[in-house]
């Protein structure tokens, strides 16, 4: 247990990652699949941001009072990744709306049945 605690941020990341991927693979509902995909992508935000934090560190302010600060780069990167994630989710949901209009269902097996073999 004491071995696990120092790396608990990575455990949270890994658990979220697996939960997200599981939902994508195991769910037949297209909206639930997208929710899983969003969780999966969110876990990556943690993967980037958590190693950048230094305990007791501040924001990178140029002042003699602060000498220890956290790495600001991952925040900037992940801001971009969040935008990408939102765009993906929005496009995915838009596609699901169109699929619902065309097929009358968003359950994967029902939709595939509607098109025949």
């Amino acid at each position, binding site marked *: 247990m004491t071995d696990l605690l120092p790396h608990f941020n990575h455990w949270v990341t890994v658990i979220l990652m697996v939960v997200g991927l599981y939902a994508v693979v195991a769910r037949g509902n297209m909206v639930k699949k997208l929710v899983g*995909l969003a969780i999966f*992508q969110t876990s990556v935000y943690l993967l980037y941001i958590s190693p950048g934090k230094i305990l007791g560190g501040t924001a990178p302010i140029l002042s003699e009072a602060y000498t220890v600060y956290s790495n600001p780069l991952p925040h900037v*990167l992940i801001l*971009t*990744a969040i935008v990408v994630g939102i*765009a993906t989710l929005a496009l995915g949901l838009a*596609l699901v709306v169109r*699929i619902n209009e065309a097929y009358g269902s968003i359950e994967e097996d029902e939709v595939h049945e509607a098109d025949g073999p």
Partner: protein
Amino acid sequence: MIASNLPALQVAIPLIAAALCAMLRTGETAWKIALFANWAAFAVSLALGIEVAQYGTVSYMMGGWEAPLGIEYRVDAINVFVLLVVTAIAAIILPYARTSVAAEIDPTRQSWFYTMYLLCLAGLLGVTITGDAFNIFVFLEISSLSSYVLIAMGRDRRALLGAYQYLIMGTIGATFIVIGIGLLWTLTGTLNLYDLSTRIPDLGDNAAVLSALAFLAVGISLKLALFPLHAWLPNAYAYAPSVASAFLAGTATKVAIYLFLRFFFTIFGGEAFFEETPMPGIFLVLSLAAVFVASVVAVFQDNLKRMLAYSSVAQIGYITLGISLATETALAGSVVHILNHGLMKAGLFLFVGCIVFRAGVVRINELAGIGRQMPLTMAGFTVLGLSMLGVPGTVGFISKWYLGVAAAELGWWWLVALIVLSSLVTLVYVGRVIEVAYFRAPSGPVAQAREAPPSLLIPGGILVAASIWFGIDTSLSLDGALVAARLLVEGAF
């Protein structure tokens, strides 16, 4: 001023033109802007190609910020080759788009089609040209998101399902890539590809490097549709609009292959490192499976576009086969096949687009006698089909010859035999279309079909001419590929 900013212009021109197209409501003006931007991008990559050939690697600091703090665009023999392939194929397809898009896409959506086409082009060029790992992810997502939209614009409702499926798989792939990049960044503290290539070898036998490698391998393999991660590809290509199918089949997977080469050879330290990992064995088996399984599946398709999509999976198998051998000859074969397959498959999809335009059918059984009604279209299709077989005098022969020679150099004669055998399977599915098209009487909608208009035939004709030209005179294509292969083997940057 312009000459020194060529690398930035390469991405900026299509990106800005995409924004312009998004503001327009008529397809005609949007097409003109797209055509201009696309040919300008091609001119830029030609100029970059000449610069790289004369002076070697070009390094460009975005906004004047010095690397590794700033973002660097780095052009060498490997990615300038891919830039040229992507812009050339896109530039040849675009004149075709005017007639085909007008027929296949709702008038209110035509300007959006060109917006997405240009965004996808900008994304693909960005992935290829950038020297920054996180930039790769962002551009990859720009190109992927716009290609999902391009696919969803198909008239069949199954296009929506294809796009959705591709979105799920593509996002998982891109996220795997970004996890791999994140691990490398945590280990080395840099995102600059050149910096990564100098720092990673010092880390030695590190478990985190290997897991980054694994994430990158799976993520990129999803993007390049390596068997068995190809499930998204057939539906996406089969139901997309004709222009989108041709464009994506000719360029998108090729850029993913470039990414694979860049990460595994240049960044992780050349052929020596690649040989130490279990990758060559895994890739060899999966590539052979791709070549045979996808070819056999293609034989049993009744939709012509789906057949070509499965054939794409098989052709990508040849490229990854060359990568798995990892010798200079094999890599040259793979790199030159990036161009060759792009020419062949884009051309084939363009000719299928001609058939859709005139006859409106894509089921192989309904194509009976199309060779008599549309002789030029089917002649072009046949030549490119023979090129996929690897008939001497066409580009397909050059790639297969190099793969065969590479296998023979290693003394793997069984592999040479398998490459020849795989051509026979290709013969079956190409031959089936030729048989139906030429040796049966026309019926149904085909009987009323006329030859496609010149605006559709000429772009396809250019690709046919290019496949024969590069099949006979290989001085341009193969020399570029050989230089690139040498760089890859050495892991030089």
